[in-house]
């Protein structure tokens, strides 16, 4: 696996990284909203069994990429596959995805339990389950209250717990630690690392770059709708001669705008 890791660099043609099967693979992905070209040919690969941080300044195209990945929006061009299945082939590929939106806004009159039951129902019966986070977050007492009465932090814990619930092979986490207290945030990061060790792939965005130093294995850095850098965190450090991700990213952006 590690030899494959090193072969991925921004200069590589996307065709050369066909093996092993990527958790997410995009080739020449484009998307425009009206006259705004948000993604202009994105080639990237999220390697299986790794935590990949999707980074970039505001309006770089991160959320748009996540939307295309989740089927919330359709690409204009290029290809996008999840575990080898084209996203365009139908909704079944989302069976493999556990998604944690940035902010959970559940229907306000439902209880946590009802939300969980709905999400489970939508996946059918024979999905593996993992309710560990419901336990560690101590959500049991909150599950029968209407979601609207829960605090923002509790709602975010519920949000996180539901993303991990079906043992997805790909976790898509949008700012997972935002809105969580330091303890819960620590629990979640630990869970992310453990899920990765069990073989799942994780794609996450975060504005807290300092926490990614320990969490992320790979970095994909988007800038103006294209991939400016992708590869392992170590390679990023080597390439920029900066030990800390925060500085390394700053260096990347400087390089682009001299």
């Amino acid at each position, binding site marked *: 696996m590690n030899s494959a890791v090193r072969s991925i660099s921004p200069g590589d043609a996307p065709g050369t990284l066909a093996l092993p099967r990527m958790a997410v693979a995009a080739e020449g992905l484009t998307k425009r*909203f009206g006259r705004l070209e948000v993604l202009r040919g994105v080639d990237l690969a999220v390697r299986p069994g790794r935590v990949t941080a999707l980074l970039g300044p505001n309006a770089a195209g991160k959320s748009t990429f996540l*939307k295309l990945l*989740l*089927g*919330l*929006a*359709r690409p204009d061009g290029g290809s996008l596959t999840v575990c080898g299945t084209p996203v365009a082939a*139908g*909704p*079944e*590929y*989302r*069976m493999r*995805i556990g*998604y944690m*939106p940035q*902010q*959970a*806004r*559940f*229907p*306000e*009159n*439902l209880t946590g339990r*009802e939300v969980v039951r*709905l*999400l489970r*129902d*939508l*996946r059918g019966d024979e999905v593996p389950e993992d309710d560990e986070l419901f336990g560690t977050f101590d959500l049991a007492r909150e599950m029968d209250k*209407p979601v609207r009465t829960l605090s923002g932090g509790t709602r975010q814990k519920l949000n996180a717990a539901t993303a991990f619930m079906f043992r997805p092979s790909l976790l*898509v986490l949008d700012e997972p630690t935002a809105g969580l207290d330091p303890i819960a945030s620590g629990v979640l990061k630990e869970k992310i690392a453990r899920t990765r060790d069990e073989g799942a792939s994780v794609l996450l965005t975060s504005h807290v770059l300092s926490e990614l130093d320990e969490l992320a294995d790979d970095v994909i850095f988007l800038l103006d709708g294209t991939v400016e850098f992708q590869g392992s965190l170590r390679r990023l450090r080597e390439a920029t001669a900066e030990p800390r991700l925060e500085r390394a990213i700053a260096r990347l952006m400087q390089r682009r705008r001299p």
Partner: protein
Amino acid sequence: MTSAKVLRYELQDLRRSRWMLGYALLLLLLTDALLRFGGGGPRAVLSLMNVVLVFVPLVSVVFGTMYLYGARDFIELLLAQPVGRGSLFAGLYAGLAAPLSLTFLLGVGSPFLWNAPADTPVGAPLMMLLAAGVLLTLVFTALAFLASLVFEDRAKGLGAAILAWLAATVLYDALIVLVATVSSDYPLELPLLGLTLLNPVDLGRVLLLLQFDTAALMGYTGAVFERFFGSVLGIAVASGALALWCAAPLALARRRFGRKDF
């Protein structure tokens, strides 16, 4: 299957909604008061007609639009699950239209149970009233879906929804009167008939008036309708046109939902 699951969650959600409770209570009180003090069953039904024609579309389209904008984030979460957009849309529409219709049926129908007037039967007019109310609920819920899908901006969507209601209830009547007065020297029956078919609220009114046999007394469009079609055919044509009024915006909204970038 997916639709049924989405429908069930939405029913759970709306069953506990204070807005739905308020809607039910308001209809209940209004109907009860009209039955007690409105002088007899058929006359109460006639007064209720105006409530149904004006109030039901308003609540359906405004509440529906607000609900859909509020549920936007959750709809996105649902779209990220392994479900197709078509079945999700069907579930969402049924989940909104069914509770609104049921609330209407309960709110308007139940006072008739304990206020049943002994002397005059209200059966058929009441049934027609309930049917027209449900049809209008379906139509204006579909319009709410369309508004919330066409406009990204919540304020614009709500504005469009209210405008649609205003157009169907107030502006359209004004237009018809204007057309009738300006061109009173010409034979107007067919153009007016056409205009009536273009407005769901007018269609609801025609349905009720034909049922009451007071069509000739109650305004131009009703009279024209009765003369042209006769009661039975008139009711069939008006219901058909209302069904079309429900299907067309729904099909548009469904198309839009299928292609939309959330």
